C-alpha cells in the first residue's frame, strides 16, 4: 500500500469514528433498563471483535511466516498482536466499567470473561516471549509458534470454562438484548470505525517494525 492510500485510510477512519461517536451518544436511543451506561457497549463490543480478529491476524501471519520465512510476516504478526493486546485491555476495562453498575461486580467468572482474560494473558505472554527470545530469527520462529498455539487454544478455553460453569450455579446470564434499529446502526458504525482504526494502527506499526529492522541491518553493516 502506498502512503496516499494509508492517508485515505486514516481520514476514513477519522470520519467513521466521528460518525460512530455521534451514533453512540446521540443517535441511539437510551436503553430502558440500564440507561446511559449501556452506551459503552458501542465501544466495548466492536473493540472485543476487532481485538479478537487481531489475534487471529497474528496467528495467520505466524503460519505464513513458518511457511515462507519472510520477515514481513513476522513484522505483521507482532504489529497485530501488539494492537490486539491494547484493544483487549480496553475491552476488559470498558467491560468492568459496565459490569460494576449493572451486575454489581467489576468481574465475574462468566465463560466469555474467562476466555477473554486468558486470551489477554496468552498474548501478553507472547510479547514477553518476543522480548526475551534473543536473536531475530529465533524470536520470529518462537513467536509464530506461540501465536498459533495461543489462538488454537481459545476455543478450548471457552469450552472448558463453559463446562465448569455448567457444574456450579450461574449467577449472571447475559440475556440477549433486543436491539432497536437505532442501536443496531450505532453498533454497526462502531464496528466499522474500530475496524478502520485497527487498519490505520496496523499500517503504522507495521511500517515502524520494518524501519526498525532496516535500521538494525544498517547498524550491523556499519560495524
Amino acid at each position, binding site marked *: 500500500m502506498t502512503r496516499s492510500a494509508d492517508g485515505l485510510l486514516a481520514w476514513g477512519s477519522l470520519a467513521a469514528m466521528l460518525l460512530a461517536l455521534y451514533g453512540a451518544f446521540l443517535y441511539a436511543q437510551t436503553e430502558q433498563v440500564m440507561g446511559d451506561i449501556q452506551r459503552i457497549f458501542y465501544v466495548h463490543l466492536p473493540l472485543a471483535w476487532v481485538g479478537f480478529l487481531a489475534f487471529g491476524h497474528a496467528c495467520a501471519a505466524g503460519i505464513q511466516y513458518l511457511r515462507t520465512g519472510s520477515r514481513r510476516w513476522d513484522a505483521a504478526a507482532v504489529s497485530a498482536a501488539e494492537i490486539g493486546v491494547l484493544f483487549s485491555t480496553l475491552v476488559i476495562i470498558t467491560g468492568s466499567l459496565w459490569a460494576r453498575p449493572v451486575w454489581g461486580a467489576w468481574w465475574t467468572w462468566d465463560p466469555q470473561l474467562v476466555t477473554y482474560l486468558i486470551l489477554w494473558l496468552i498474548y501478553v*505472554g507472547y510479547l514477553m516471549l518476543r522480548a526475551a527470545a534473543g536473536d531475530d530469527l529465533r524470536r520470529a520462529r518462537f513467536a509464530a509458534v506461540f501465536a498459533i*498455539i495461543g489462538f488454537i487454544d481459545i476455543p478450548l478455553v471457552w469450552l472448558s470454562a463453559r463446562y465448569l460453569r455448567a457444574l456450579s450455579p450461574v449467577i449472571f446470564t447475559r440475556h440477549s438484548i433486543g436491539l432497536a434499529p437505532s442501536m443496531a446502526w450505532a453498533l454497526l458504525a462502531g464496528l466499522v470505525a474500530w475496524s478502520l482504526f485497527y487498519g490505520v494502527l496496523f499500517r503504522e506499526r507495521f511500517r515502524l517494525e520494518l524501519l526498525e529492522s532496516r535500521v538494525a541491518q544498517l547498524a550491523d553493516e556499519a560495524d
Partner: protein
Amino acid sequence: MRVLAALIWKDLIIEVRTRELLTSMSLVAFLALVILSLAFEPSPAMAVNAAPGVLWVTVAFTATLGLARSHALEQERQAFQGLLLTPVSRSLLFLGKFGANLVFVLVLQLVVVVAFAALFTPEVGRRALWLVPPLALGAVGFTAIGTLLGTMTATTRLREVLLPILLLPVVLPVIILSMAGLNAAIDGGAMGEIQRSLKLLAAVDIIYLVLGMWLFEYVAEDAA
C-alpha cells in the same frame, strides 16, 4: 519404537543416576502442600472440597519448575544439538522428550496425592484409584504443551520465569477439565459426569499432542 524407547530411557537413566529432578520437585510440592495446609487448617470436609484445586495448583507450579529444569539439562554441553544430529525425525524427538517428562509429572502427581492424603485427609487416599484417570490424562496434555514450550523457553533470556507465564494460560483447559473430573471422582458422583469430563480431556490431549509434534519441527533448530 526402539528409538522412542531409547530417547525416553536416556532421560530416565540420567534421572536415576542423579535423582536431582524428582527429589527437588517432590520437595517443592511437599513444601507447597505444607504451606497450604498451615494456611487453611482444613477440616476433613473442606479438604475434600478443596482437593482438586490444591492438587492441581501444587502439580502445575511444581511441574513447571521441573520441566524448565529438564530442558535446561539439554542445553548443557550442547546435548540437544547432538540429538538433532542423529537421524531421527523431529516429531520422534518431541515424543521422546514428552515421554520422559510425562514419567516425571506422573511420579510428581503420585507424590502430591500421597502427601495430600497424609496432610489433609485420608478420604482422598481411599478413592485414590478414581483419581488416576483425570490426573493422568491431565498430565498428558500439560506435558505435551509443556515439552514444546519448555524447549523454546530454555534458550530465552528469562528461562524458568518465562515458562509458567506461557504455559499456564495455555494449558488452562486441561487443568479445568481434570479438576472437574477429580471433583466428580472424589464426590463419588455419577459415572456419566466423570466420563464426560474425561472424554473432553482426552480430546484436548490429542489436540495438544498433534500441535506439539507439528510445531516442534520449527523450534527444534533454534533451541539447540
